[in-house]
């Protein structure tokens, strides 16, 4: 039974679940840091899907385009998270707020 | 089953046992210092055994060198991390607790 599930299908499925987990985390968690982590998980899930769909048919080498896209995506996602982190730290230092709700 | 494969399996199994010991130590030991102790010692040795075990499977000499180089890096990093955490924990714990721990 297990034999015929391809490895890429496992990872693609995990990517889907991770995406929803990240989305839920983004809306449910209050703290800024957690929201930033949630966005990074969201990103990672998308890249996981990209690469897992790519290696469905192995020719002499895996499809390089998704790999390039994912590397670019990771760097972009990390830069955005770093910027969000800087903002969150500054908000904490200025106003002591660590969530979007008004009561800190 | 050629001699080389058997040799690799034995060493890898030994390595795995040491890793297991390290993890059990991590779970069972009472305070931070003993856990650090268990982890760094056991895991480094376990890694060494696995690396030696795999040396025979390797196809080119340079890959072998690289694996040894990785092992030495892991050793340096592991011990340093253990030292840093230990020092941090030591500076934080109040005076009498350390005396009581050292008796």
């Amino acid at each position, binding site marked *: 039974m297990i034999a015929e599930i391809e490895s890429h299908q496992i990872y693609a499925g995990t990517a889907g679940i991770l*995406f929803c987990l*990240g*989305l839920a985390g*983004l809306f449910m968690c209050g703290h*800024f840091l957690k*929201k*930033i982590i949630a*966005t990074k998980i*969201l*990103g990672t*899930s*998308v890249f996981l*899907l*990209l690469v897992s*769909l*790519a290696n469905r048919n192995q020719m002499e080498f895996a*499809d390089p*385009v*998704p790999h390039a*896209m994912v590397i*670019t*995506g990771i760097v*972009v*996602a990390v*830069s*955005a998270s770093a*910027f*969000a982190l800087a*903002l*969150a730290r*500054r*908000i904490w230092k*200025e*106003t002591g*707020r660590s969530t*979007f709700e008004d009561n800190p | 089953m050629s001699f080389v494969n058997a040799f690799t399996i034995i060493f890898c199994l030994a390595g795995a046992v040491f890793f297991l010991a390290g993890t059990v130590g991590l779970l069972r030991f009472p305070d931070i210092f003993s856990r650090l102790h268990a982890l760094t010692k056991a895991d480094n040795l376990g890694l060494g055994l696995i690396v030696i075990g795999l040396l025979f499977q390797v196809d080119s000499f340079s890959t072998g060198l690289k694996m040894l180089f990785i092992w030495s890096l892991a050793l340096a990093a592991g011990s340093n991390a253990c030292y840093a955490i230990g020092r941090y924990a030591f500076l934080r714990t109040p005076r009498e607790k350390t005396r009581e721990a050292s008796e």
Partner: protein
Amino acid sequence: MNAAASSALLAVLIAAPVTGALIAFLLPVRLRATAGILTAAATTAATAATAWRVAADGAHRHALGGWGAPLGIDLYADGLSCVFLLMTGIVGLFVSVYAKPFFAQPEENKGATELFWPLWLILWASLNGMFLSADLFNLYVMLEVMGLSAVALAVLSGRPPALVAGLRYLLAAIAGSMAYLMGVAMIYGAVSALDLQIVAAGIEQGRSFRVAFSLILVGLLVKTAVFPLHFWLPGAHSTAQAPVSAILSALVVKASFYLILRLWVDVFDGSVTVAAGQALGALGAAAIIWGSYQALRQRRLKLMVAHSTVGQIGYMFLLFPLITVVYQDVAEAPWLAHAWTGGVYQAIAHGFAKAAMFLAVGVFAMAVGSDDRDSTVGLVGQLPMTTFALALAGVSLIGLPPSGGFVAKWMLLKAAFTSGQWWWAPVILLGSFLTAGYVFMVLRQAFAPTSHKIKLKPVPRTMEVTALVLGAAAIIIGFRAEEFLLLLDVEAAFQEPVEPHRANDR
């Protein structure tokens, strides 16, 4: 100019602002403004040249890096993108002219405002990239560049409310792009191509394609701040400084609208259903009502104008239900031309009007010190030009003739009637009625003469003039829509039928 040179223009549109940004970043602070304005002028000139070439001999395509479509990335400019490029050019140039004296004022110069020019020029480059790029993943990177630079600009002043609103905007932007990228990943997995035309050819009917497209759509809706997903816009646009909020409201929001329009018509026209069109229209209608109603209730001018943006975006989305109908060929649905031009014209007119309004409110806030609604009493005496600019922008937003807004609303209404979807007409009218409410509320304050003459801080004249020119632009495009329509028709996407697959049951 031969074909190669004119197609190179497309790359210049992105390279020029970035070069300007880097030079501005490396220059000492006092030279940055002049460098910035020069780059702005150059970019606008390049935009005009591109529009001229496209109008003259059809769409242009520029293969980046010399590689073809499937592997490399293409820049593609047709009528629709040229129209949005022109708007970005014109509004961008005048906002740059406005920004130079604005940031020279001491109290506006707090925080990291000397980074305004590099950030603004990179944002401009990413806007041009959004309108030109014909590659799904490249559009994602452009979206991120645009989002990051927009948030950086929004938090320029460093004030806590701006920081909090900026973070909320950033997280929303990231979430939106990730949803978009998820959709793109699924599309690439299925069609293994990223170029819009190849993807359009490879799309077939199927549930997974529809899921992919709805993910892309939701992602972009978050970035366009349509009604339920607009929570981040009012805070970000109102706490930003005047030229920045003008850029955000007039240009940044339009880029993701343009992308939705491009994908809806060019790429996913096969898997788009009439119900989806009506749903988008309903979202637009809700946005109109909610945004305009909220704008009426705000105490602070900038918040009011920001909420008005949420409202006006709703108008643009009325375009989708009108063009997504089951029909065979263009002749059978004559109203397509109207709907199409109306929606795009609304975006352009709103761009000019909203930029003028934010710049005018910026002048008020700088002169009076606070942008509270009651503090602008009797300003027409001392700041006639700015009040006039606000009035012109207001007229265009409401859609009174002879403004651009009027032509847009006229065409949307006409399309609504001829296509039999009459239920959009009351929404359009209620929207312009509410808009009239808050525009005249501000004007009434400005016109009400007060006994005491409040001492105003002197405001540099160029700021008032730029606001007035943008306001006048919103009115002038109401007079001459002919050329605009000719430009829009180049490779107009609505020529070939947008027929969602008939059997809606699948």
